Structure formats: C-alpha cells, structure tokens
C-alpha cells in the first residue's frame, strides 16, 4: 500500500514539475515573441522527426532480426508453405511502399520546415500523378488478390481422396477428438444424443459409428492429407494450429471443415528446434468464455507405422463405454424419441 502511495506522490510531483516547466517556457516564448518561439519549436520538432526516422529504422531492423526465430516463418504443412511464399511476396511489396512513404514523410517534414525565408509552393493538384499512383497500387493489389484467391480455392476446395478424417469438437473448455476406427468412416452424430458420457453425440445406430474411438490428442500421419471435421457443443470456438497454418471456427449447429497435409513429424521438429519437449499445440482462436486461454490441444504427427501402432491399441468407444451399460439403454430411448420426432416433422412437411 505504501509503495503505491509513494509511486502516486512521485508521479504527482513529476507532473507538477512538468507543468511548471511548460508554463515557464510559455512565458519565455511570449516575451521573446511568438514568431521566434515558433521558429525554434519548428527546428526542434523537425529534427526530432528525423531522429525518429533514423532511430525507428534501426529499432525496426534490430527487432526483426532479434524476433525472427520466434515467428513461425516455415510452416509444417504443404499449404502452409504456399502461404509462406505468399506472405513473403506481400511483405516485399508492402515493405517497399512502407519504406518509401515513411522516409518521404519524415524527410519532407524535416526539409520543408518553416524558416525565415521559406515560401511554400502553390501546387494544388496533378491529375496525371493521381492516375499513376492509383493505377500502380491497383495493379499490385490485383496481383496479390489473384495469387491469394488461387491459393484460397486450393485450400478450401475438396480434400484429396486418400485423406484420413478426424473429428474435433470444442466445448467450454476442452477439445474432443473422434477417430473413424478401422472402417475409416466416421459415424453419424446427432445433437440429441449428446450427454455426459456420449460427449459428441455419436449415433450408434449408424454401423460406421460402432468402431469409432475417442482420443485425448490429435494423432496425424506425416505427409498424409487429413480432413478435420470441426464442431462445437456450446459456443463458437476455433481450431488454430499455427505451425500448420490451420484456422477454422467451430460453430454449434454446423460442421465446418479444414484439410491439410502435415510435413514434419513431432520427432523431427524436436530435433530441428533442438527442443525435446516440443509439441504441436491447438489453440482456441475465438473467445469462448473465461477459460478461453486454457483450451489447449495436442497434435502428434507420426509416421504411418507409428500411427497404425497407436491406432491398433485404441478401443471402440461403443464397445468400451456404451455397450451393455445404462448408456446403451439411454441411447436407445433417445434414439426412439428422435425417430418419432423426425417422422412427425417429415409428415408436417408433406402436408405443407
């Protein structure tokens, strides 16, 4: 408490000092004459802009070099690499514009500061110039748009035929992973079947669902395309996996999708980064409540062999958690209910 009080007192005193300084300089300026005072201020501030430009430029370069290893500049996925080169192209063009405009701004501000003999030039317009600096940016931006949309359609287009599928369902505040099991097909799901045990509402009437298994992490196979089917149980979440350049909202009531091809195994990343504890992490990227910052998921990229080994040890959710338990009975009741409900709705539609 006393620290705070001291800090506050110090700040107040500091402010008073600055205030008095400011008032004094104003009196002095009035005495010396407004014109002279303004001229001096012009000189100082113009110089400060130049200093800012140079100092800022140095700080910029230093920070880029220093933080480069922190930024994930080389993606671990196929489409991620497309996006990296797209990013670099954008950086090239915007970097040029950034440097030219900022330098011109600060240089002009310094060079054309008011001095006793300076007169401004009455030059109100130049339509030809306007045309050039409209057309050239438009051309560059069109190029960026074309590249961008081309890649966008590739990324959002249909997944390759040999893709594996994983369903990831977000909830406050965790991720649920469902795998298709040996038949390679994810069973259907229905909102009405969600409960404390059947967390993602698997429809056990669907034969394809009987061998689905749940996991505590996302296991993927290196160089094999994977389609993520993304769902949510409560509010909007988002599956974000920075190293793979994956980002897609999880919306209750819908299933969204995102496919990609991981290119570096977890083990190889650990070697590459010289970090034996490295893991690919899923972050929730849409504010979902007070636990939003804690919704971490783990992604493990393995060789096909390692994955098969892991998968063979996983047991069907139906067999282990549902069959022969109260949950099975509960599901049967819910299922019957849902069937009646759907029949009634269909009948209504027929009549309308």
């Amino acid at each position, binding site marked *: *408490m006393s620290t*705070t009080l001291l800090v506050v007192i110090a700040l107040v005193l500091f402010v008073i000092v600055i205030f008095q300084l*400011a*008032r004094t*300089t*104003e009196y002095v*300026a009035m005495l010396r004459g407004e014109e002279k005072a*303004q001229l001096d201020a*012009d000189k100082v501030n113009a110089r400060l*802009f130049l200093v*800012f430009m140079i100092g800022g430029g140095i700080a910029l370069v230093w*920070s880029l070099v220093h*933080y480069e290893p922190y930024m*994930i500049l080389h993606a671990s996925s196929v489409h991620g690499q497309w*996006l990296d080169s*797209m990013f670099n192209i954008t950086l090239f063009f*915007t970097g040029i514009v*950034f440097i030219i*405009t*900022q330098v011109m*701004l*600060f240089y*002009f*501000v310094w060079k*054309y*500061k*008011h001095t006793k003999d300076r007169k*401004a*030039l*009455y030059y109100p*317009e*130049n339509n030809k110039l*306007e045309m050039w600096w*409209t057309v050239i*940016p438009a051309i560059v*931006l069109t190029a*960026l748009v074309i590249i*961008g*949309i081309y890649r*966008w359609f590739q990324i*959002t287009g249909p997944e390759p035929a040999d893709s594996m599928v994983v369903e990831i369902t977000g909830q*406050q505040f965790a991720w649920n992973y469902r795998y298709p099991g040996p038949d390679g097909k994810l069973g259907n799901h229905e*909102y009405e079947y969600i409960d*404390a045990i059947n967390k993602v509402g698997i429809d056990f009437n669907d034969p394809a669902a009987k061998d689905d298994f749940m996991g505590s992490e996302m296991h993927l196979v290196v160089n094999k395309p994977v389609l993520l089917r993304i769902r949510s149980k409560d*509010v*909007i979440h988002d599956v*974000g996996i*920075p190293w793979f*350049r*994956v*980002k897609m909202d999880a919306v*209750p009531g819908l299933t*969204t999708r995102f496919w990609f091809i991981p290119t570096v195994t977890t083990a190889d990343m650990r070697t590459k980064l010289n970090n034996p504890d490295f893991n690919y*992490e899923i972050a*929730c990227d849409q*504010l*979902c409540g*007070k636990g*939003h910052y804690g919704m*971490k998921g783990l992604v493990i990229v393995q060789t096909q062999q390692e994955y098969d080994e892991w998968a063979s040890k996983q047991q069907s959710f139906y067999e282990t958690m549902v069959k022969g338990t109260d949950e099975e009975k509960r599901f049967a009741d819910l299922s019957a209910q849902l069937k009646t409900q759907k029949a009634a709705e269909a009948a209504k539609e027929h009549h309308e």
Partner: protein
Amino acid sequence: MSNEVSSPVVHPVFEGDETHHQDSEGELHDHGHAEHHKEYFFTKYIFSQDHKTIGKQFLFTGIFWAFVGGMLSVIFRLQLGFPNQSFPILETLFGKWAPGGIISPEFYYMLVTMHGTILVFFVLTAGLSGTFANLLLPLQCGARDMASPFLNMLSYWFFFMASCVMLTSFFLPSGAADVGWTFYPPLSGVKESAPGAGLGADFWLVGMALFIFSSLLGGLNYITTVLNLRTKGMSMNRLPLTVWALLITAILGLISFPVLLGAAILLLFDRNLGTSFYLDKIYINGHPLEGHAGGNAILYQHLFWFLGHPEVYIIILPAFGLVSEVIANNARKPIFGYRAMILSMLAIAILAFVVWAHHMFVTGLNPFVASVFVLLTLLVAVPSAVKVFNWIATLWQGNIRFTPAMLFAIGFVSMFISGGLTGIYLGNSALDIQLHDTYFVIAHFHIVMGISAFFGMLAGVYQWFPKMFGRFMNNTLGYIHFWITFVGAYAIFWPMHYMGLAGVPRRYYSFDAFQSFNMFGDLNKFMTIAAMLVFFAQILFILNFVYSIFRGRKMTDPNPWKSNTLEWTTKIHPGHGNWDGPIPEVYRWPYDYSKNGDEFIPQTEPYRPGEEKLHH
C-alpha cells in the same frame, strides 16, 4: 453590408426550433440571435441547443471515456506484462475481481470487452464525430446552427444516457459484459455461458441501442445541415475537406447503424424472450439448452459486421478530414489533389459496405463468397493509398509550422501507413487463415484506429481548442504529449505483429499453458511499460486541456492559425448564431495558401481581377 442577404431559404424544422425565424414582414433575415432568447443556466449549458456547446459536451464526455477506456487497458496490460505477479493495490481497488492482487480471468475478459466497446463507440465515434461535426459543420458551411438544434441536443443526451447505462454495468454484482466487444452469440446469447453474459450483457445491449439512437439523430442533422444550410457561394466543391469527411461519415452511419440495432434487438430477444435467431443445437454446462433451436450464430456476425466494417470508416473518415485541414493549414499549402481526396473518400465509403465478411473468413463461409470479399477488400486499399500520397505531396515544398496539432497530423500519416499496410495481409483470405484472431489483428486495428484516428482527434482538439474556448493549450505540454505518445504507441503495437506471426491468439488471459506462446514474456513487459507511459502522457494532455480552458493563453487574434475557413471569421467568442452580422459570403475554395505572394486568402475574399481560378 446590405441587409438583403439572400441566403438559402430555411424553414424551421420543428416546433420550438427558433434559430431561424421570419420577422413580421415574412422575410428571412440573418442576424445574430443573442438578444432574442432569455437564457437560463439549464438551457445555456446543460440542455443547450447550440451546436458549439453540444460539440463541447461530446468532447468532455469523449475525454472522460478515453480516460476510462485507457485505464482499463493499463490494468489488463498489467496482467499480460506481469502475469502471476501480485499487485495488492488491485485487490484494494477491485475486491473480488482481483483476489490476491491478481486480476481474475473473468475480470480480464470484462476489461477487454469494455475497453473495445468504450473506445470504438464512445470515444472514436461519439467523441470524434460528435465533437467535430457539431463544432465545425455549421461554422464551416456558414450556417447559424444545425438544421435541427433540438434533435441535436437530443443526440447528445441519448449519448449521455447510453454512457450512464454502460458505466452502471460495471457496478453490477455480475459485472459488465465480458463476451468481447464483438458480442458473438452463443457466448453472448446464452446467459450461463460466462459471468458477464448475464445482466451486464443486457445493459450493454440497451446502452448500445441508446448510443445508436444518438448517432442516428446526429447523423441526420449533419447531412441536412451540409446539404441545405450552406451559405451563399459555398458550393459543394468549395467545402473544406472536414465537411466532406463528416458528411460522408454521417451517411455511412445512417445506413449501417440500424443494422447493428437490429442485431442487438434480436440478441435481446434470444436472451430474454425465448427466441432462437442465433441459437441452435447448444449443449452447455452439462445440459442441453432447452427451447432454443433452428437459429444460426453466423447470422449475427453478418449483421454485426455489416455495421462493424463501415464503423471503422466512420471512425477514420473524420480523422481524414481533420488531418487534411490541419496539414494544409500548417504547411501553408493547398491540400494536394482536393478532388482526388473527395473521390477517394467516396470510394472508401461505397466499398465500406461490401467488405464486411472479411471479418468472417474462417467461420466456414462459402469460399466463393469469401473470394469476392477479398477482391473488394483489397480494392479499398487503393483510395486509401491515394490519400496517403496526397498528404505527403501536400508537405512537399511546404512551409511547415510545427504546432502540436500539426505534429499529431504528421504522426497520423505515419501511423496510417503502418496500420493500413497490414490490412493488406489480413484482407487476403488465405493469409488471414494464419493471422485471424492473433495479435497481428490487434496490432493492425490499434495502429489504424486506436492511434491514427485518435491522433486525428487530438490534432483536431489542439487546432480548434482556441475556437472552442478562446484560449490556447500549452505548446510545450503539447510537444511532450506528442512525442511520448508517438514513440510509445509504436513501442506498444509494433511488437504485436511479431507475436501474431508466431500465432499468439488474442483475448488470452495468460500464455502459461502454451509452450508455443509463452516466449514473449520480456516483450510483453516492454509493451506494458510503454502502455503505462503513453497513458501517463494522456493524463498530461487532459490536465493541459482542463487548465487551458480556464488559464490558457488568451486569443487576441480571431484567426490565430491564419486559416481560410469560415469558422475563423467569427469573433473570438462566437455567440448564438455564430456571426453578429449577416453570414459571410464565400467566393473561393478554402485552400488558397501561399498563392501569388499571399500567405493565405480566406474563402470570403472575392477573386482579384486577373487572378487564376481553379475549377472551384
């Protein structure tokens, strides 16, 4: 001056609208009105219908909210810069929201939600448009007051009511809203989804509805005044760029704010009346959400961003106008490319309506639809670039006077370049995949709104403070204010680009759980300290502002900046009706600076024989 001033015919818009009236002979006369009303304290200062007073009311309230919103950010930046560190003062001040001197996640989310809401709407919309449209439009157009002073007064008081509702929400037991300033359902639509999704959220929605009424009433006035009440000779192509900017802003607001009102009302219905516009298939807190089915959460996002995107242009356009005026005046040069500046603002305004879904690229939007929005979004970069080039060209061969206003205008250009360029990355949907909802976005919108637009507002305050109060703000404090803020703002927000590129998500209370994100500890400390310094500089500004109203150096020259525009042709303390005699007539555009040896030629000066006329 003859009494036969033939100004445009004006009819009182509403009963009791006494600013313009006909005398007994049925002729419209322009003369000052100070002698006609008896003014009570209440009608002169509180429920004033004078646009200049209303402008000040918006400014004072805007400054109050800027202080609150800035303070909120210092608190949550304490958590981000010094996580897990106890500051006992926080528990003293905030009790249950900061147990053990560490702010709780619930409190953190309340802080970021209200910070965004307050700054976007209450400071940068009401505080910026409200202040300067009210102050400048009638004066710069050559009108006695707004078209409807009564509606104008109402627009401030609806803003005041909205402010009361928002402020009160902080003191509710469950606290203010904590679902993000964007308020997406189902998080905001289901009361049990978060602590601040309860009563605080209802207060927020009601507060926003009141705020929207305020904006609409103001906007109606601004448009009508500019279109109908310009003085003789003030054709549209002789209007200062401030007026153009504020006019276009008002049109944008008029069309887009009602959509947010609709979105908010539907949300209130979902929350309180059992409807399901946005809700479907929700299983929350261990139970299904009964009675809500068939809605679509994405509908809200379309409705929200249909306002939300134009909103950011509503914020930046007035800054464009103010900065153009300040730069031309202080460089003693015509603004370069007056026509191009107007056309670019029009282009930006039109495009503003058709880019909203670039906020929704990763919602599962139809990819083809998304691609259309990519094209339109990157298109809007073109007129923005043109404006930047024009400002720089205005400085070229100028004769630059560095008042605090000019410093902020120059700083604006630098910031707008930085922030605008990162928009090009975000608007390209494929790149947005990586950058969406990361610190890269935070960097972008803070630099372009939080700083650029704010700098425009500050430039306006410093430049027009003498007009409002007949005194000057202290220059030394102004210089200190600028340099700390300019350097500090870059220090706070530039590093966020790096964090964004590393994938660090926004709206995270802490990064402890993630090895991917927890390496920016030192950088976060640095940004927090910079934020505190910048906040401190704003306190200096507020002190300067308040002090100077009462004890600032007095204006002796009614046109201290040697400006050409009409507001400087009134006397130093303009009364009701602005001009004592008839309203001046206008003969030229406002940018004849340094023409043929004349340092400035006010709009009220006719063309000399043989003087070169532009197309204005």
